């Protein structure tokens, strides 16, 4: 990391190095260093807006400050507190549970939609592809606000919809339903995006593969499950990683929906909400930093375990 500090800043000027043909087939050794020139502009921003703030936040997490007493260095005390804090652990348990249910459902919906769309070329299928994708174009905050309206039994349409079947509308954010209610918001917002990724991967498969399979007597189901799905498995891995990181840091949707369901979405509903509340509502910035890093550790373990298990597919050998 010491090298980072001496990275030349600014724009990489086009280097006018003399032609130096290589004989070994790769770029020659001296030139490898020019890689830094390409990485430099990003590095500047990366250090300024991620590494330095992270360092600062970490430093904060090693201190303790209370409302009545002053600030003092407390080492890893905040971390031992975090990992024994029932509020934090409860939040972690929730996001883990949520990921375990959300990700498979999301995968199934987007995979099913993509497989169906891949087989059709009707006008309806093109229209559907776009409609399924459209929620991704809606900012998450606005989407969550909208669902807050939609879930209102009296104000939103949910009462009317259930009324058609003669049932009283449930409140989708009551303690019993909040899990499903949030699940629905997230699936609605992101499934189309994942669907498009999978769809694009499916379109990239050489169709002659199917021909061969059909010659061997495979039916549509078999082709889908035995050929298509394995061939796009690296796209699926990508989606998994997206989804794991995103879901463990789950924040925006419940944070916005708290304003209409303060009882079931409490101040420590997810670890990220807990960190946010601690910092900005309770002024416990130091402990909030520790909670954030503790969550970072959880996310790190979660996604690295997954990346490691699937490393053949993700291009990061």
């Amino acid at each position, binding site marked *: 990391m010491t090298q980072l500090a001496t990275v030349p800043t600014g724009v990489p000027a086009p*280097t006018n190095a003399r032609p130096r043909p290589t004989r070994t087939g790769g770029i020659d050794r001296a030139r490898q260093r020019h890689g830094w020139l390409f990485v430099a502009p990003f590095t500047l921003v990366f250090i300024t807006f991620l590494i330095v703030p992270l360092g600062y936040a970490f430093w904060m997490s090693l201190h303790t400050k209370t409302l009545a007493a002053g600030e003092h260095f407390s080492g890893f005390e905040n971390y031992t507190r975090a990992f024994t804090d029932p509020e934090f652990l409860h939040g972690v348990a929730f996001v883990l549970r949520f990921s375990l249910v959300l990700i498979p459902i999301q995968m199934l919906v987007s995979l099913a939609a993509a497989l169906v769309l891949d087989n059709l070329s009707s006008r309806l299928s093109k229209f559907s592809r776009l409609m399924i994708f459209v929620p991704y*174009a809606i900012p998450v905050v606005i989407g969550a606000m909208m669902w807050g309206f939609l879930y209102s039994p009296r104000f*939103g349409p949910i009462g009317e919809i259930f009324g058609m079947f003669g049932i009283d509308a449930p409140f989708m954010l009551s303690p019993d339903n909040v899990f499903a209610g949030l699940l629905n918001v997230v699936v609605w917002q992101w499934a189309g995006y994942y669907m498009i990724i999978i769809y694009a991967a499916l379109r990239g498969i050489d169709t002659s593969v199917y021909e061969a399979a059909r010659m061997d007597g495979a039916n549509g189901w078999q082709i889908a499950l035995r050929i298509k799905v394995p061939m796009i498995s*690296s796209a699926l891995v990508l989606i998994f990683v997206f989804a794991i990181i995103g879901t463990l840091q789950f924040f925006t949707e419940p944070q916005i929906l708290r304003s209409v369901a303060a009882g079931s979405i409490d101040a420590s509903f997810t670890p990220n909400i807990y960190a946010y509340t601690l910092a900005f509502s309770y002024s416990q910035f130091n402990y909030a930093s520790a909670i954030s890093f503790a*969550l*970072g550790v959880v996310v790190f373990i979660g996604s690295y375990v997954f990346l490691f298990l699937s490393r053949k597919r993700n291009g*990061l050998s």
Partner: protein
Amino acid sequence: MSAPTLTREPGARRRGVTQRRNLGSHTFLVLLVLYFALPLWWLIVASTKNINGLFTGTGGPLWFDSEFDLVANVRQLFSQNGGIYWRWLGNSFLYAIVGGVGATVLSVLAGYGFAKYRFRGRNLYFAVLLGSVMVPLTALVIPTFVLLSDMGLTNTIWAVILPSLLSPFGVYLMRVYAQDAVPDELLDAARVDGAGDFKTFVSVALPLLRPAIVTVLLLSTVATWNNYFLPLAVLSDTKLLPVTVGLGQWQAQSTSGAAGSQLWNLVITGALISIIPLVVSFLSLQKYWQGGLSLGSLK
């Protein structure tokens, strides 16, 4: 779900089966479309109502009220706080475009550098890069604010734009893509012809990276457009807010009792209008971005 069928080359013999199966597929699609479009339908209908129509309207939440007030709502968007809504929308565009293009440029350069050069510290750097996205951004609000404040940039457009230039994920995608899409032999050939590193990059690599560039541009533009909590913390000037934060502010104003004012119709109409530009550009540009979206997975 019905069994997928092979419609790409529908043989005459198979047509009957295909159509029957397509019926199932199409039913499935119609259900999906209903699910994904219903909230939007509600939003469209709701944006044609005034406050009374929203709370005590006659048509129910899923149908139009007796009064059609879309035009009045839009007009009120022009008059409320001196038409600040349109300024918010413009800000969102500015942040999304500058942030999106900037992040893409940095990601393309860095991703290419990571993919095609074996400089010292590369692997460690890349590991740090991937690890850094694990810590939630809420931890960074205070440090980022302090930093921006030291630079004299809080409450300026740069406070939103500069942090959004950072797209570790874009770098990751570009690296994975460039590794395969830009063959070493081509680069070597260019160098043999006497081209410098940057010239080689521009003339050989860039054209090959085009699908990935479009995708990273799309992802980073959407990410900036989505921005909410950072601008919330670093901007205090109403005139600089992006539309997400602005609408959030109006919503807060409507839900707070004391010193509040009821702006529900503006929140809803404003939300509808704010999603139109992105939806339209998605629809009209789909040819360009769809190809690239699977990158990172094509191996």
